[in-house]
Structures are given as structure tokens and as C-alpha cells.
């Protein structure tokens, strides 16, 4: 466990010095990496921990981005205030969306969540209620101001995104090491056994969606700030596939696995940018190779890390 903390220390130390050594386009990639990691970690609550095939997670990412964009540009609400609103709204959506489909198994749930993602995308495209700006999206989103400091520069937004990633990782770590995370894991491993020992299936499954949706939405707000704009394409079904694959390729329910997954699926293709869209070959090849060579993910979850006092002779 101590060794893990050293690794995380190194990881964040590199993240802190990184933007001073690369050109601006790579700073942007670093920011998006942090935000995509947050979304992937939030997807993992539903997919990796609770074992539900949610293939529409970009919906919640989008709800966050659009909530911030609409509230900020149309109603002039400062970005910082839009954050709690976006989280609450998305979590509420997660509850409403998942409630009627929560009993569906595996592939059935997957298809239903794709359906929600398509409806969401079409709603954005068609400028529902005249709020979403149609296919062009919304421009001119402001920047957050914290304690009088305006987070406006590219580097400031980068650090803000990484701070959000740190908070997310702490939350995920806490989930893993608690009754909450164990209940998710029990449900994934055997629903009948979990229920027979008092796990309220519906409550925990809906809660997984609510938490996942809330966290994805938080990332969405910062994503809207990073590009000062939002458009529907960023939140379509293909994006959901990306988040889904990050979890499966990286390692379900594993924080290092998901960070690695985001790196492989999002950052690595950027190295091949001169090949234009051909760079997505990497994306496809990584998916196929991992599933053949390491079907449990690059860095799968490890169980059995128990509190020390359990081993002490008494």
C-alpha cells in the first residue's frame, strides 16, 4: 500500500512540472487527459465496480458541460456556482434514467443506455428549448474564479483539471475501501448472494449511476471551460464507447488501470497526429490486443488488501 502512494506521488509530481516542458497543444492534451480520466473513473463506478454495462456515459459528461455553458452564457451565473448545480442535475438524471432500466441484465442494459445517449445527442443537435445552440453548440463560456483568482490561463485550467482528478481519485479510493464499494463489488460478482446478505440491489445500482453521473458532470463543466465552447459531437455515442473501452482495456475497478487506459486510448493516439485520422488505428489495435492478451485489463483490480489489525494475533 505504501508503495502505491509513492507511485501516485511520482505521477502527480510529473503532472505538476509537465506543462513547463511542452508546447501549448500538449498542455491541452494534459488537461483533457485529466478530465477524461475523471469521466473514465466515474464510468468505472457503474461498469467496473457495480458491473453494469453503461454505454451512454458521455450523456452525463455532456449534461455537465451544457449545464455550465447554458447557465454561464444565457443566465450569467459564474462557473463556480454552476459546478454544484451541474453535479446535482446530472446525478438526478442518472437516477431518473437508471431507475426504469436497472433490472436489465448485461447487453440489454447496454442497448438501453445507448438509446439514452442517442436521445441526448439528438436533443442537443435539434436545439431543444432553444437552449443548446443546435449543431454548433455554445460559445464564449467564462472561466472559474476561486477566492478572487481567475482560472483563465491555459496552465491554470490545466492545474484545476488535475486538482479535480486528485479529488476524484480520493473519492474512488474511499468508495473501494468501504461498505459502499464492497456492496458494488458483491453485486457484480453474484447478485443473488449479495441480496441474500442484505444488499439492496436497486438502491446500490441506482446510487452507482447517480455517483457516476455526478462525477462525469463535474468533469464536463471543466471541459466546457477548457475549450470555452461545447458542441454535440463531443458527447455522442462514440465518446461513450471511448470511456467504456478505457475501463475495459485499463482494468475494471482499478485506479492505476483506468489512468493507464486513458493514456493508451487517448494520449497515445496523439503521438501519431501527423497521420491525421489514421492515428485511430492505435485505438483499434490497442483494444484488440488487450482483449486477446489480457482480457482482465492491462492493470486489473487486486482484492485482498485488508486492514492490518485483521492479521494481528490476539
Amino acid at each position: 500500500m505504501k508503495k502505491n502512494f509513492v507511485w501516485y506521488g511520482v505521477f502527480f509530481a510529473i503532472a505538476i512540472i509537465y506543462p513547463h516542458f511542452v508546447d501549448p497543444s500538449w498542455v491541452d492534451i494534459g488537461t483533457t487527459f485529466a478530465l477524461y480520466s475523471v469521466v473514465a473513473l466515474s464510468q468505472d463506478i457503474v461498469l467496473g465496480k457495480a458491473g453494469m454495462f453503461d454505454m451512454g456515459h458521455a450523456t452525463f459528461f455532456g449534461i455537465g458541460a451544457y449545464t455550465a455553458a447554458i447557465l454561464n452564457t444565457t443566465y450569467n451565473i459564474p462557473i463556480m456556482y454552476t459546478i454544484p448545480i451541474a453535479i446535482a442535475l446530472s446525478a438526478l438524471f442518472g437516477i431518473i434514467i437508471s431507475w426504469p432500466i436497472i433490472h436489465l441484465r448485461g447487453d440489454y442494459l447496454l442497448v438501453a443506455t445507448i438509446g439514452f445517449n442517442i436521445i441526448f445527442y439528438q436533443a442537443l443537435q435539434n436545439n431543444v428549448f432553444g437552449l443548446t445552440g443546435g449543431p454548433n453548440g455554445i460559445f464564449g463560456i467564462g472561466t472559474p474564479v476561486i477566492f478572487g483568482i481567475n482560472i483563465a490561463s491555459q496552465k491554470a485550467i490545466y492545474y484545476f483539471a488535475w486538482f479535480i482528478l486528485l479529488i476524484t481519485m480520493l473519492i474512488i479510493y474511499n468508495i473501494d475501501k468501504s461498505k459502499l464499494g464492497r456492496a458494488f463489488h458483491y453485486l457484480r460478482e453474484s447478485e443473488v448472494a449479495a441480496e441474500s446478505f442484505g444488499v439492496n440491489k436497486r438502491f446500490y445500482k441506482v446510487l452507482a449511476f447517480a455517483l457516476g453521473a455526478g462525477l462525469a458532470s463535474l468533469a464536463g463543466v471543466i471541459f466546457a471551460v477548457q475549450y470555452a465552447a461545447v458542441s454535440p459531437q463531443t458527447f455522442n455515442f462514440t465518446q461513450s464507447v471511448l470511456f467504456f473501452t478505457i475501463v475495459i482495456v485499463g482494468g475494471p475497478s482499478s485506479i492505476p488501470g483506468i489512468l493507464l487506459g486513458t493514456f493508451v486510448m487517448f494520449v497515445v493516439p496523439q503521438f501519431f497526429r501527423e497521420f491525421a485520422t489514421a492515428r485511430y488505428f492505435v485505438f483499434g489495435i490497442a483494444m484488440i490486443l488487450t482483449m486477446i492478451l489480457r482480457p482482465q485489463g492491462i492493470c486489473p483490480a487486486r482484492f485482498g488488501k485488508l486492514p492490518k489489525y485483521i492479521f494481528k494475533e490476539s
Partner: protein
Amino acid sequence: MLLQLNNVLKTFGGIVAINNLNFEIKENQIVGLIGPNGAGKTTVFNCITGIYKPDKGSVYFNGKDITGLKPHIISKLGIARTFQNIRLFPSMSVAENIMAGRHAKCRQTWFDSLIRTPKYFRDEKENWLKVKYFIGLLNLSEYTSAIVGSLPYGIQRKIEIARALASEPKLLILDEPAAGLNNKETQELVDLIYQIKDMGITILLIEHDMDMMMSLAEYIIVMNFGEKIAEGIPKDIQSNPQVIEAYLGSE
């Protein structure tokens, strides 16, 4: 009366799995449920624990009507079980599996879990120590952090019982606990069941090992084709012509 089944009927698409079943279980007894394959024994267990909802009739536990309640609610009232085909959480460790039994006893809310309130720390420690106690009770200490899926069958059976005991139930339901165990393991199991009884827990078990059942159970209920054909103390059951016929066939 700890458990009471009144005229329970359960059908699956026209096939009657349990027909008008009545029986009662007194507190702190070891009760056996026997019958040929397909007699509906496991269906009875599933109706008691809420996995199935009876079509007709009622189930009372500790004076409370539990008919048709969800399994997680019935579990909280004090019924724990093991499964005929082991249902553990295979990729998790032994301790984490047994911790499942503590789920209903853990007092932390999901919010305590998320932000680690003082209540979270107290609750975790209290329940992990309980887990440790039950690991010790079943001599599983050497496997504490081992991943369950890779352990031998006999050990997995023990883990299932440990998980059930960890929930500190009033009634423990064992579905063929000796299946797949060797003689030595079966003897250990018999000793364990007596030990559990001494803890004040009532035990209801299905078992095919007739010798074990006759020596272990204080009271036996016999089923065939979804109906109760006999009940009584082992000595009477052994000489009951209907039971002999069900098991050996009529001449």
C-alpha cells in the same frame, strides 16, 4: 415458533414445484429437509429467503409475515443461507467475502463511506474485527487474504458458512452443505453444525447424506413431488413406509 409455512404453493409455468406445504420449526433445533431429487427442497429455501415469491400461502418468521418480501429485507430480519452451488464472490478475498455477512450490520451510510467520517472508521474497525473472529472460528486464518475463486471446494463451503454466520442470524439455512466433501470434512461439518446450534442458532438443512442427516437432525421433514409426505423424529422417519417408498420406489 421461529419459522412457519402455511399452505405455500409455488408453480413454474404450470409445473407445481411446491404444493400446499405446511411446516413449523421451533427455536434452536436442527431440522432436516429431505426428499428425492426434484422434490422441491431448494424451492422451499428460495421461498423462505425471498428469492422466489410464493403463488399462494404465507411464510412467518419470528411472528412476522415475510411472504414475498425482498431477499435483502428478509436477510436483515435474521435469516442467512448457503447455496447448493456455491455462490461466493470469486475474485474477492476470503475476508471480503465474509464481510458481506456484515453488510446489514455495518452502520455507515454511503455518505460516511464517501468522505470517511469518524463513524466510518469506527464502523469499519468494528466489523473487520467481527470478520476476523469468524475467520478464526472456522479455522480459515491462513486464507484471510486469499482470493476465493482459487481455493479448494471444501474451503469454499466453509467460507460460505462463515459468511452466513457473520450476519449473526437467528435461522441458518444450509443447502446440501456436505455435497462434495470427503469423510473428514463431513465430520468437521457435523461438529461445526453442533457448535452453531450451541450459539443459539436454529438450523434448517437439506442433505442427501442420509446417515449424517439421521444422526444430526432432531426433526426431519420429508418431501416428494412438492408435497410433505412425512415429518417427525429421525427414528420414526426411518421406519415410515411412505418415506421408504419415496426413496426406494414401491414394489
